[in-house]
């Protein structure tokens, strides 16, 4: 009956109840959605880090003059020096120099832009996973990312065209599909990519004056990566305290993780502040609504007390009201988050499994719990006030 009274009072003041609920809906939506997005990105990066824990990505720094023109990239000499530095640490490694750029592509009548990669045939295996078809051995055969194939309705045997270096159209045949890596990945992101041999790449892009765009080093023993990193830095980047003579930028997964952790921490602080402000506003609104409710129902409380209702039951009645506002508002906020946050995360390039992982979905019950606790805490003072009304004075109120 106490619950029925609380429920009926909320129904009687529907508009006021809905207004006070909006605050908690926004607060819980902020907690759930921001928490889910943050957890989703962290999960995705964790997976990426574990997948690429054996990888160093090298990018060139500074311009080189080749045949009278300036260009940026790794020369054959750079590759040899980097290999020497790597060998000084371990004998079990793969060193993969590759070319890459963005290139307009024509598929049927549609045009688009795609990432193109040029690698030696025997370097492809260690870098990407083939889900179907065969590796391109030469000519105009290429492999494409699964996502790219799906988006453009491509299958093995399909044709795509690029404009070659001499302006002629070069039609390429898809011979295999690469496993998706997601947009957040080291080195090669296969999702929107076409990969072929270095000869193929030279025919459609050129060979960047013989300079590779990037080098990936994979060590059989990931614990050796730090030492390799140090050896390359020592050999290629001149004096340790002078950045201007550096020729190589070395990115390892752990450093990226640190950078990302820092970003996520900042984002987490921001999220907490936004959520706290939303919930504070909601808490003030609910306290206000509950105080109004107590004031309007003073006489009713007096009657209830006079016919044998305990103080604790009056307290419960008002807490039920606050709790119901909190529970319904929190559930609505959580449902909205459950719809909007995954859409946002998928648009941002997260995989389906990352979007619906346990650590992401945990923010739903967490958000509901926080919303409920905030509402109950907001209702505590008004409920206490109602429970401690003097029944005689309360009954004489009109």
């Amino acid at each position, binding site marked *: *009956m106490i619950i029925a*009274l609380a429920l009926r*009072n909320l129904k*009687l003041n529907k508009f006021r109840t809905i207004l006070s609920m909006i605050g908690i809906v926004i607060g819980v939506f902020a907690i759930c959605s921001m928490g889910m997005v943050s957890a989703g990105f962290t999960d995705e990066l964790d997976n990426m880090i574990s997948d690429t824990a054996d990888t160093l990505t090298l990018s060139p720094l500074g311009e080189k003059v080749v045949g009278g023109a300036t260009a940026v990239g790794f020369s054959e000499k750079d590759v040899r020096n980097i290999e020497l530095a790597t060998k000084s640490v371990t004998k079990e490694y793969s060193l993969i120099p590759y070319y890459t750029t963005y290139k307009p592509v024509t598929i049927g009548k549609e045009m688009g832009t795609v990432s193109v990669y040029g690698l030696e045939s025997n370097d492809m295996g260690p870098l990407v996973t083939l889900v179907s078809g065969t590796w391109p051995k030469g000519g105009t055969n290429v492999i494409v990312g699964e996502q790219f194939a799906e988006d453009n309705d491509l299958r093995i045997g399909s044709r795509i065209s690029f404009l070659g270096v001499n302006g002629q159209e070069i039609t390429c045949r898809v011979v295999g599909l690469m496993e998706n890596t997601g947009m957040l990945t080291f080195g090669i992101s296969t999702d929107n990519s076409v990969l072929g041999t270095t000869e193929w790449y030279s025919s459609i892009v050129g060979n960047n004056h013989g300079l590779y765009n990037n080098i990936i080093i994979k060590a059989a023993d990931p614990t050796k990566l730090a030492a390799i990193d140090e050896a390359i830095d020592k050999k290629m980047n001149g004096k340790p305290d002078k950045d201007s003579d550096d020729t190589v930028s070395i990115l390892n997964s752990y450093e990226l993780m640190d950078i990302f952790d820092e970003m996520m921490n900042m984002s987490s602080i921001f999220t907490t502040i936004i959520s706290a402000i939303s919930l504070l506003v909601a808490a003030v609104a609910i306290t206000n609504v509950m105080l109004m409710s107590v004031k309007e129902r003073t006489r*009713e409380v007096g009657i209830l007390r*006079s*016919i044998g209702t*305990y103080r604790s039951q009056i307290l419960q009645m008002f807490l039920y009201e606050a709790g119901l506002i909190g529970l319904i508002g929190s559930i609505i906020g959580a449902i909205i988050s459950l719809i909007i946050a995954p859409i946002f995360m998928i648009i941002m390039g997260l995989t389906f499994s990352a979007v619906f992982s346990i650590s992401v979905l945990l923010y739903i019950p967490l958000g509901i719990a926080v919303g409920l606790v905030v509402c109950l805490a907001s209702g505590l003072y008004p409920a206490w006030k109602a429970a401690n009304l003097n029944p*005689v004075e309360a009954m004489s109120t009109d």
Partner: protein
Amino acid sequence: MDDAPVVELIDVSKVYQMKAGDVYALNHVNFSVKRGEFVAIMGPSGSGKSTLMNMIECLDVPTSGTIKINGVSTTDMTDDELTEYRLNTIGFIFQKFNLISLLTAYENVEYPLILKYGQRDHSERVKKLLTMVGFTEDRMQHTPYELSGGQQQRVSIARALANDPTFLLCDEPTGNLDSKMSTQIMEILSDLHKQGRTLVMVTHNPETAEYADRVIIIRDGEIVGEE
């Protein structure tokens, strides 16, 4: 314990401290009500009737003196103990009916039963009580706003009887009713008295007081006579 008066006030005073000095709302009041009696407390406005009523209701405590209900002093009881007394021992009938506006007539009568016995099927008792006070079944699901004053007071009487209290405490039960309805309500109360119920009624209306066995006259916080 059965021989003890149902209500006993021993030298009860209620003093309000005002800037102008102490005001005695009740001044050394002594009286008792025996089991099965119908006692009316009569007096003009400001005579101390309401204060006396609040004391017997266990809603207020005296500044000095002792109030005994069923031979047990309520002076040192905790709030929960006093609430339990109100729930189990006293049935209230108010001038303004004081029904809970969010509940139907049926639920208003059911409410004290749920407080005492918990949530279970009380329909037989609720319907019996409402029928006894002349309330028709087709109006049982109506809220107080949909009922006339007389109907509300009938529901109020049924609610007061729900937990089979030791005595009924009536505060100007006909104060908000026309004369025809007042007579009907007083007839119901009179019938309850004839069935052996103990009634204490506060009124300023001599016609209403005539239904009582005994009338205690109160003025300026003191008992000035008994008829």
